[in-house]
């Protein structure tokens, strides 16, 4: 299927290689900028969760750690519910064996995984004989601002997106070759992507179904043993993981507070979704990618693209609340848009390269690099504008003030993750206003304040507030604590209040 009918520029292997190397080096470079800053720039709750898990795994076998630290680190790790297999965390923990605990290791892995996804995009474009388009699509995948931010976060999502890209490559390769080897590889990579994070099923199922449907007759599809093998291999790892999760841990609890069908009746949900989609992917890119569906020369990739878009829509309909509140839920969108960009960009590049002379071709490359450098500059500015390093000392100090052995109830804006990770203090969480709203949205009734309070503070030493906005907005709690308990430490400037729960005062 591959042919040599490429624009001249991309037939010269050294030039193509050089360009790709420049893209990858620049993409890694921008992701490593401000590497050692705390991961507060993007959805820190999820990042600190991964940090706690990785540290716990590492400390479990760390002979030099003090016992209280080891116990606490492991307890913090085990205290995190099972959501997806902790692959990134385990890898990071293994690396800690060589580097010690470094907050930025996860960032490096996430960045490298994303870059590997870029490689899959490039190989996929090559398989489609669209090298020119592949380079532009790769540049988009590596430098679109949303992806630059998210892909360096210590979350399973960058790895998942990379795995989606590799699965797409393998599926398309299977389509071209139709060998058992290719089918098994497609099944393995698709299954791996879904195992890494189960929501990968939406775009991948869409792509796989699209690909199979593009072959035509249903009878032929059903009779194809390879198709059944791909389905089986894809499903097995996730099924095993879910059986394990449901039987040996609390994986089932992860499905609560996720489905809000009521939101689907609200037209504003769809408008906001549209705005988010266009905002994350870039309006022009999204538009071009949709047009790209119509510009694939064959039905295979065309139906894959349609399938992925349908999968993305199904994903949003399944998780409407999280789609509005969790930016990183949209990350698979980047690979979907990238896929659709390949044919559009390829047509454009071919035409430009065929029509114009050497100077123009150089100008075109220059323009590409200029556009990338502008995107990098914007990303760099946004990273440079925020510096969270000072926070570490604050949380460490607060941890010491509280005492690492204390049992606390905490009202925080981050579910207590920073205090847990940086301050080495484990806390039970008092519901935030957002939690209350979420439960209300799910139709759950709110418990009586006094009963709930009594239940939550039972056996606890301290009530710690580390979120001034929450402290302001929870008037009942503020009133109750200030009138019934002694404030033993506070700093309004830094934003914390500590109440002693052992020593109630008479109101």
């Amino acid at each position, binding site marked *: 299927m591959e042919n040599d009918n490429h624009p001249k520029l991309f037939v010269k292997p050294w030039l193509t290689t050089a360009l790709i190397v420049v893209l990858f080096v620049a993409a890694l470079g921008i992701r490593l900028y401000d590497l050692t800053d705390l991961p507060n720039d993007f959805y820190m709750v999820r990042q600190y969760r991964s940090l706690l898990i990785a540290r716990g795994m590492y400390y479990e076998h760390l002979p030099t750690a003090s016992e209280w630290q080891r116990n606490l680190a492991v307890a913090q790790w085990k205290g995190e519910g099972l959501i997806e297999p902790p692959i990134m965390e385990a890898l990071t923990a293994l690396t800690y064996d060589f580097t010690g605990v470094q907050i930025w290791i996860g960032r490096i892995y996430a960045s490298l995984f994303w870059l590997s996804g870029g490689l899959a995009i490039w190989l996929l474009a090559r398989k489609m004989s669209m090298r020119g388009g592949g380079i532009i699509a790769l540049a988009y995948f590596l430098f679109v601002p949303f992806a630059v931010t998210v892909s360096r976060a210590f979350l399973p999502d960058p790895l998942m997106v990379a795995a989606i890209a590799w699965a797409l490559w393998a599926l398309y390769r299977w389509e071209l070759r139709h060998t058992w080897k290719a089918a098994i590889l497609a099944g393995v990579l698709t299954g791996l992507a879904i195992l890494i994070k189960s929501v990968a099923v939406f775009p991948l199922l869409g792509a796989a179904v699209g690909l199979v449907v593009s072959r035509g007759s249903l009878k032929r599809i059903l009779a194809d043993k390879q198709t059944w093998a791909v389905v089986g291999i894809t499903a097995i790892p996730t099924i095993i993981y879910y059986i394990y999760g449901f039987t040996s841990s609390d994986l089932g609890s992860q499905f609560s507070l996720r489905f809000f069908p009521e939101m689907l009746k609200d037209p504003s949900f769809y408008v906001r979704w549209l705005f988010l989609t266009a905002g994350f992917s870039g309006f022009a890119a999204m538009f*071009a990618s949709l047009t790209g569906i119509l510009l694939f020369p064959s039905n295979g990739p065309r139906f894959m693209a349609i399938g992925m878009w349908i999968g993305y829509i199904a994903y949003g309909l399944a998780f409407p609340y999280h789609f509005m509140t969790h930016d990183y839920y949209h990350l698979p969108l980047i690979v979907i848009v990238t896929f659709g960009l390949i044919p559009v960009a390829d*047509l454009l590049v071919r035409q430009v390269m065929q029509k114009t002379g050497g100077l123009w071709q150089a100008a075109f490359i220059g323009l590409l690099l200029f556009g990338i450098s502008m995107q990098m500059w914007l990303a760099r500015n946004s990273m440079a504008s925020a510096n969270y390093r000072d926070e570490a000392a604050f949380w460490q100090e607060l941890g010491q003030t509280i005492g690492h052995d204390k049992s606390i109830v905490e009202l925080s804006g981050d579910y207590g993750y920073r205090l847990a990770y940086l301050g080495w203090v484990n806390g039970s969480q008092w519901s935030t206003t957002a939690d209350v709203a979420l439960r209300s949205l799910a139709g759950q009734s709110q418990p009586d304040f006094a009963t709930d309070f009594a239940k939550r503070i039972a056996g606890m030493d301290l009530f710690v507030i580390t979120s001034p906005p929450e402290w302001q907005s929870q008037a009942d709690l503020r009133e109750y604590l200030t009138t019934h308990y002694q404030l033993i430490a506070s700093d309004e400037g830094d934003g914390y209040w500590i109440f002693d729960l052992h020593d109630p005062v008479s109101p």
Partner: protein
Amino acid sequence: MKRIFAKIIFRERPWMWKMTLALMLLGGFALRMINLTNPPLDFAPTRQLFSALKARGMYYQYVTDAPDGKRQLAISLGDVGIVEPPVLETIVAQTYRLTGDHLWIARIYSSLFWVLGGLALFLLIRELASTGAAIIGTLFYLFVPFGVVASRTFMPDPLMVALIIFTLWTLFRWQNTARWKWAILFGIFGGLALFVKNLSVFIIVGGFAGVILGARGLKRSIRDPQAWVMAVLLVLPVGIYMLYGSLRLNMGSQFALRFFPKMWLDPAFYFRWDAMINNVVGFGASMFAIVSIFLTDKKRERPLLFGLWIGYFLFGMTFPYHFYTHDYYQLSLIPIVAISLAFGIRWLLERFAKYNPGILSTVVLVGIVLFGTVVQAWYGRARLVSSDYRNEPAFWAEIGDKLGHGPGVIGLTQDYGYRLAYWGWQGSAAWFTSADIGVRYLAGQDIDLMQMFTEDTAGKKYFLVTMFGEFDNQPVIKDLLYSHYPIFAQTDEYVIFDLEHPSESQP
């Protein structure tokens, strides 16, 4: 091949594209009528109120039933200086004679001019590229969110842009036909554009030079009387006006603090310029527009485009400071991008027609274009309704009543006192903002704040402050006023110092 798409969609039925065009223009106009009566503070309020004051002053020259004091006050408040010939202000003032003075009248005129510019743009792109490209290019022009907001403002710029487009259309007609009719029309439209706002010179002369040098040839053009007539008609109105302005209207001062060549050496200037472009037309659209130049015909299409882009570049280099602080300076970029990306669109549509001969895929494409338009329109609408300034007139009226509508007021107030002047019917001298001081430092001027305060407040009765953030930025002045002058009146939103009765310790 070039017109395949036109054949498929419009089946060479002119009524179809005419109807599409009419719907687009009507849609663009209707969008701009949203939130029509909101005071014009959503975009470049200083510039809009400048025109509003001028138009009201002109109108009150004709009003016979207003009290003489009010009439004189309106006329004197309307004497805000000369920047460009008050073309729009005159039209609006004459309309006020029929309708009474309503600020939204100007919004209707500007929107109308912009939409008419869309008509010329459609005709130009249709001749340059294709009908399909003209539709998409015009949709971009009409619905790009920044354009939606900026094009309905009480400023000469929307009219200027519309006239630029008519000029370019006639220029291209002339390039293709070499007829006297188009040469003269070019001269008239171009002359009008330069007259309305002389900054249009960059784009118009850029395009003209491109056609003369690239499409027709310099030698041939020098010998062509049409070219000379075009040049003379182009400069005649603005030449006469500038001469008159320099001699009679003290317009020379308008050129001060505009030219900052040392900014050329600062890389941040170029990054900010790029960020401004992204804000105005979007990163994807601007890159696609530039890439599209590569797809143009060397002799027929490229010269005009080159001229436009070089003109735009020179515009930015001439006014580097204003180019990233005054976003409306970028308004003429919208038609340039719309024209440029038409070539890429033409080419993609041709490919699309090749790959998708059926009607279904055409319908899908139309659906994608409609979808993109709706999303853009929704963005535009969101910007239009995002703020409500309807409480402003009453606020300023209250302050105006407090101050007594007489002379002797200096203020640190929004928009150099124009809000106070327009709604409060109270003239005032404007105290420098920190940005004003900054631009003077940039121009190498030295400022002695205390001396300036003494000079500017001499003979004044009141010092009004409504910009408290700005007041905090000037601690010397803040301290001086609070420590040496009694407060005449104050609320949470304003404070008026009595300059006539200073406390005993004089500054």
